[in-house]
């Protein structure tokens, strides 16, 4: 057997073992045993993935709160109106914690001092239960006052995803509305649009 033939056989065997075993491993990333923890800037732009992330949450809350505070129904109100913030519907392809959006907006609005908030409908039972414990300090009129809001805020998060061989494009639209619950009239509406584009590298592992 010539050296060349031996070399060729050895190369074939090596290649075979690489192709049979090495290639069969999947791509799930494993977190190594050693990790390096450090504090980051909570407001820094986060670009780890194209998913809805902390930067999007912050910019959305900031933009929509500012817009809402500028509306005449709040800016020129005689006294801070009572508002109930309803859940924001998630109509996207991701499991977005929409409560994080509403919480953030609520905090920003409350800090402005221009609105008063009523408990969420989801929490209303708990609030009522608490009040039942202190019925002596409560009247039915006050109970009614608690459930009557001047305005309600509702919203939706939508997304459109498109991808081809090279590029993945994700568009998010977060829209909110201020509604008069008595008339059903939409008094204010605004949206925050976010577009994220990720591209594939040409060569990689």
């Amino acid at each position, binding site marked *: 057997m010539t050296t060349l033939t031996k070399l060729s056989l050895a190369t074939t065997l090596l290649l075979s073992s690489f192709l*049979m075993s090495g290639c*069969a491993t999947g791509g*799930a990333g494993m977190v190594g045993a050693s990790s390096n923890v450090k504090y980051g800037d909570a407001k820094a732009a986060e670009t780890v993935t194209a998913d809805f992330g902390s930067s999007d949450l912050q910019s959305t809350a900031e933009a929509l709160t500012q817009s809402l505070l500028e509306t005449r129904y709040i800016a020129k109100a005689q006294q801070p109106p009572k508002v109930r913030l309803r859940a924001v519907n998630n*109509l996207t392809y991701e499991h977005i914690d929409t409560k994080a959006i509403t919480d953030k907006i609520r905090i920003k609005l409350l800090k402005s001092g221009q609105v008063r908030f009523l408990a969420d409908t989801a929490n209303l039972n708990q609030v009522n239960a608490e009040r039942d414990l202190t019925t002596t300090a409560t009247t039915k009129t006050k109970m009614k006052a608690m459930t009557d809001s001047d305005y309600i805020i509702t919203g939706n998060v939508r997304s459109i995803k498109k991808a081809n061989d090279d590029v993945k494009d994700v568009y998010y639209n977060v829209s909110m509305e201020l509604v008069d619950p008595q008339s059903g009239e939409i008094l204010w509406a605004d949206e925050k649009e976010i577009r994220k584009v990720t591209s594939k590298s040409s060569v990689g592992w």
Partner: protein
Amino acid sequence: MVKRLHLVTCSLLCALQLSATSIDSNHLRVSLSKPQFDQTLITLREDTSDQDKFWYWLNLARLQQASGDFNNSINSFEKSFAILDEYENRAKVSLRNVGSFLGSTFLSKGSETYYGKGYERSLMHTLNALNYAMKGDFEGAAVEMRRMEQRQEFWLSETEEKIKEAAKEKAKAEKEGNDVSSMPSEYSMAAMLDDPSVRNLANSYQDPFSYTLSSIITDIAFPDEKLGEVSLKRALTLNPDVSKVFAKLPVSPTTIPMPEKRKPSPKGKKDSTPVAAQPQPPKVPKMDVTVVVLAGEAPAVKIEKVRFPLFNGANYTTIDLPAFNPPINDVSVVTISTDKLRLQPPRLLQSNAMAYKTLKDEFVGELSKAVVRATAKAVIAKQASDNFGAFGGLMASLAMDVGSSMADSGFRNWELLPNSGYLSKFEALQGETVTIAMNDRQESFTLPRDKKGVLILVSYITNDNIRIDHVEY
């Protein structure tokens, strides 16, 4: 030479032993009955050897769902999504993809890493939607149903690539004088792939079960927006039997529907309808009941080898093609009955037909590749025979056979995917008993009171291992 052969044999045996540490497909599928189920789940969960595999997490997720552990089932599905996302987002020229392609072209079908077919990629989201729904998170369930539809887009582009690749392979094989348009007579799947149930499917990745469920879940999550209509239309296009999914109670004095809230009359006009003309309130209010039955286990992929003797008969080569072990533990008919209704929901999910349809669509490409592999192996066997004699040729054939068998054993699909899915949405009276009959088994469920609806999930794993979970809304 004997020493060298000894070394090769030892290496092969060691490798075989190493690859045999995980729970294999056959063992997994026969260990699902009630007495073995918990142990199987523990064994699978604690098996760390396959946690980088797409199919591993899908199998685990189904078992966790069937044991009512919806949170962990979601986590397992998320792991499989992450593996698939990583695959879908790889670089345009990925070294792993190239290696996998070369391996599957020249060595063994099993060198390819399995990332699921279109139907599996859709159904993993459908099953995960049920996890969210069973937790009462219908909005999360609706997200999964949207993901199900979106995942199909990537599959379509991947399939287009495969079709082009198959055409090239076919042309190449035909140029070399090989016939790749007809199936080998020894191939066990030949008749199955030509079955009318397979031929008549519109495609291999869209199923009416997922679309109908999507419509129901979306309507529960967003009752005012009628977002489920599009999905329902798609389901009806795929299978007209979808219309049999929905049933209403026959109108009778005890089942008069709740009167709808009276619409406010236009300004200035007084509503002249006398109050006495309103229908009497029902004695027992009705509610919506949705029953989902996920039954059996889908076909399990395997690599089938057709061996051909070469030259003087001492050496041989193999054509290895993907094939399936048949589905198991399935239900042939489901009957749902209440006091006033008796329903036979259609079998909307037919995983076996979708698996066979996928194989049929990809067959030309698979056969072309198999012919190239067989030729490469024949050349190596011939070289070994020329250099080491007939015994050397035989040993080379055996070594390649054993080597590819090792790689093939790791080529697995979602073996615990439900093979059948039945879906029914009907009206019933609150508090009444719903009876669900599957094969010779019969299970009963008492409906809750003071609820708008209930979603019942029946996980039929084997005939003695059935679990019923429900969520009220």
